[in-house]
């Protein structure tokens, strides 16, 4: 089916006009340049004035973008890197190409459904330890405007990058944005970590992203090294199409095989597996080992397509403690042990991907080891926060495979855990939350020492848990205010959409609030307060649900114990803001990079 993405607010700009002018802006050796011999003197003069014009334009874009960012921060509208990029791109659609061309060591792009942030984090740490200046886009700002923003904030008012020497950029890129990103940045390496089902209501189908990737890989320059996950059939199959070098990474430790063990979910129903049939002939793959979802050692019984032999391999994975994985890694030049300071098998893949890129870039072994072993997880990727004598650990989970792996990591040893789940359905999470029914919450049943359920779709999650065998009485359900969706439509109609659905929404708002009234399970008093009468709830909401949920979850966790918080993406941002309000984490736009 046709690929479906919401047209991002500012997507018109960059693509159409990017080809013009770009080739004049390539000072770097080894890159295609306009042939000087073919231009006449007049043309050359025209060229010069054109270049001047473009520099001016870049300068204008940089100045305006940064001013917009400063204003946005001032007005507390948000972190501001996206707005910086957005404004800069508006004024100069080719700003990304213009600035990125100045990076001495070029760019690396990281994409995939899960693990983009952690993989680019590992890689950035390795490259820094190798003495490079590493620039990244802010986590989650992985559309083009985020990339533009990351470059513009490091540019001078002259339109040139500050300290571009020794600099390399590592950008995490949204799966669907890869084609444009690759064209603008001509990366030295492009990393594809995995492809899982994620936000069907945003991307359409998994296959549509795969098709997009295939198309893009065919057009990659020979100078780009592809780094692919050998264990993920769709991702690995991109290697066949590449014109440049390809590096595969994968797991070789067969003791991690799950087939027959818990490859199937409860009641003989199937776990989320998002890529089952051969990319070449459509037959079902046969797995000799399966690590999770569709990751493993596969072969097509019909056409013989099989997992490529990885060049960067994890021979053995042992778990020292919950978040210390001891991995024996073999590359064409090295064999050594690396300790990954994060929980979950998925982080082994993330580390392998980073190691593979580092090898492709010619980085030596020491910075690879130190970069990974001393890695500080990004917010929400296993980071630890101390609150009132308890430890909070945040584990982002935004799709079925991600959440299944988090649950496996948390509950495979049978240790009871204190849990807070946050299920949101904001745009970045996806409006459709049906995916929670593909998550095997059954695994956690009987193993929660305390259980709090929150978020804009808390009731949906509570229902899922009920059918996974949790008694409603053992859950503390703290929804965000039930009329949220209406507030959005009334409060901030996009321009040009005025009137559409407005009257209806208003009409709706006057109806008594059935959800709050009928509540019979354990809903906290604060949440009921939050769900008071519609009039009181007019902007802004008095105490939204998440602060309360966090409070309740902490209360239920005895001092000295750990509360595991598993939020969706915007749930994580909300939590971050809440912890920030309590002075426990830095402002998210004051990140480390």
């Amino acid at each position, binding site marked *: *089916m*046709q690929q*479906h993405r*919401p047209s991002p*607010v500012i997507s018109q700009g960059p693509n159409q006009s990017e080809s013009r002018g770009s080739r004049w802006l390539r000072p770097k050796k080894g890159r295609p340049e306009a042939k000087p011999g073919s231009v006449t003197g007049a043309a050359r003069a025209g060229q010069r004035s054109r270049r001047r014009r473009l520099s001016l334009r870049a300068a204008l874009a940089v100045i305006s973008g940064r001013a917009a960012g400063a204003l946005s921060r001032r007005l507390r509208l948000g*972190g501001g890197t996206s707005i910086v990029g*957005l404004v800069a791109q508006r004024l100069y659609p080719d700003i990304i190409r213009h600035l990125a061309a100045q990076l001495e060591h070029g760019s690396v792009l990281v994409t995939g459904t899960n693990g983009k942030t952690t993989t680019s984090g590992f890689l950035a740490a390795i490259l820094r330890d190798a003495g490079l200046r590493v620039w990244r886009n802010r986590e*989650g*700002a992985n559309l083009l405007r985020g990339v533009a923003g990351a470059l513009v904030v490091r540019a001078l008012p002259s339109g040139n990058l500050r300290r571009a020497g020794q600099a390399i950029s590592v950008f995490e890129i949204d799966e669907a944005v890869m084609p444009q990103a690759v064209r603008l940045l001509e990366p030295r390496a492009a990393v594809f970590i995995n492809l899982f*089902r994620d936000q069907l*209501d945003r991307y359409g*189908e998994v*296959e549509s992203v795969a098709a997009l990737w295939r198309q893009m890989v065919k057009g990659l320059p020979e100078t780009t090294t592809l780094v692919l996950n050998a264990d993920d059939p769709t991702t690995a199959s991109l290697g066949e199409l590449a014109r440049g070098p390809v590096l595969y990474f994968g797991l070789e430790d067969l003791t991690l095989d799950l087939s027959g063990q818990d490859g199937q*979910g409860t*009641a*003989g*129903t*199937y776990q989320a597996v998002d890529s089952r*049939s051969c990319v070449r002939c*459509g037959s079902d793959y046969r797995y000799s080992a399966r690590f999770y979802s569709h990751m493993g050692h596969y072969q097509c019984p019909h056409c013989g397509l099989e997992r490529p032999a990885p060049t960067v391999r994890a021979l053995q994975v042992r778990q020292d403690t919950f978040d210390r994985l001891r991995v024996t890694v073999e590359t064409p030049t090295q064999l050594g042990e690396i300790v990954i300071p994060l929980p979950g098998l998925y982080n082994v893949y993330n580390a392998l991907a980073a190691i593979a890129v580092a090898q492709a870039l010619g980085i030596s072994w020491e910075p690879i080891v130190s970069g990974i072993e001393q890695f500080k997880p990004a917010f929400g990727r296993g980071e630890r926060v101390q609150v009132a004598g308890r430890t909070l650990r945040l584990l982002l989970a935004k799709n*079925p495979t991600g959440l299944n792996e988090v649950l496996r990591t948390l509950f495979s040893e049978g240790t009871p855990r204190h849990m807070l789940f946050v299920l949101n359905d*904001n*745009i970045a999470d*996806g*409006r*459709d939350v*049906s*995916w929670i*029914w593909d998550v095997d919450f059954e695994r956690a049943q009987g193993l929660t020492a305390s259980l709090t359920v929150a978020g804009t*779709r808390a*009731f949906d999650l*509570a*229902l*899922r848990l*009920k*059918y996974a065998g949790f*008694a*409603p009485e053992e859950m503390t359900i703290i929804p*965000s205010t*039930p009329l949220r*969706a*209406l*507030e*959005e*439509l009334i409060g901030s*109609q*996009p321009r040009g*959409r005025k009137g*559409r*659905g407005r009257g*209806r929404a208003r009409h709706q708002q006057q109806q008594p609030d*059935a*959800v709050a009234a009928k*509540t019979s*399970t354990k809903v906290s008093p604060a949440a009921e307060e939050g769900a008071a009468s519609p009039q009181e709830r007019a902007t802004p909401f008095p105490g*939204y649900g998440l602060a309360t949920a966090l409070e309740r979850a902490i209360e239920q966790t005895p001092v000295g114990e750990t509360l595991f918080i598993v939020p969706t*993406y*915007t749930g994580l*941002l*909300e939590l971050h803001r809440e912890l920030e309000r309590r002075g426990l984490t830095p402002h998210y736009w004051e990140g480390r990079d």
Partner: protein
Amino acid sequence: MTNEQGKDTRLVLRIGHLYPQLMSVAADRGNLFAIVKRCKWRGIKTAIDQIFVKQTPDFTQYDLILFHGGADREMEVAARDLQAKAPSLREAAEANTVFLAVCAGYQLLGHSYKPFEGPELKGVGILDLHTEGGSTRFMTHIAIECEFPECGKQVLVGYENHSGRTYLGPGAQPLGRVLAGWGNNGKDGYEGAVYKNVFGTYLHGPVLPKNPWFTDLLITRALARRYGQVELPPLDDSTEQEAHAAAFKLAMAFKGTVSAIDATPWRERLSPGSASRSL
């Protein structure tokens, strides 16, 4: 409480789950969970057969058959395989076996599915309807109003995500009237189809957990085939009702939007972080 089993009624519901792996795109396995749990809580046993490609069981042995959604590629595989199963499936439908078919499964119970691009797929022909691929995709919250003799007027809530436009022939009744969302084709105001005990719908969500009245209707009708009229004891459905009410509100709030994501205000789209401020 939730794991408790109701007093054994000695009733067994036989379920056939068609293509449990191939056709499972939008977590529709939740429908199976809903049926199994609501039976268990009432002391009714369930026996589930998973039916894969190349298998041709006698479908008339089942009280209830589940056939869920899949992406285009999987749908092609299923359509090819389905032709061998079709005679027995039709026989089961005529013998009053209950069917719940969702999205692609629903489309394939009709006569044909013509994708927007690519060759036409032949369906089973149990439901008198055909489907054509559209150029836009309906991806939003949906609520429909249904009416059945057992339960009167009731509302079904869910999420639709389809580009197919389905048109019913005279041999099929719509499942319900669209209150919000698009339904079969976005034009005639109806959603889903019913023929005897065969129910087809575009509703994901999955549809059954949040609509316990519908789950119970399917269970009652499925049991009636071999046990006659069985009165299902009521359950505490407060969690279900809360989720239902929340989904209904969303459907009404997003009424008129083709895609719930495109309908999102600019501020939230600008940066996901700013969204939570307005919570």
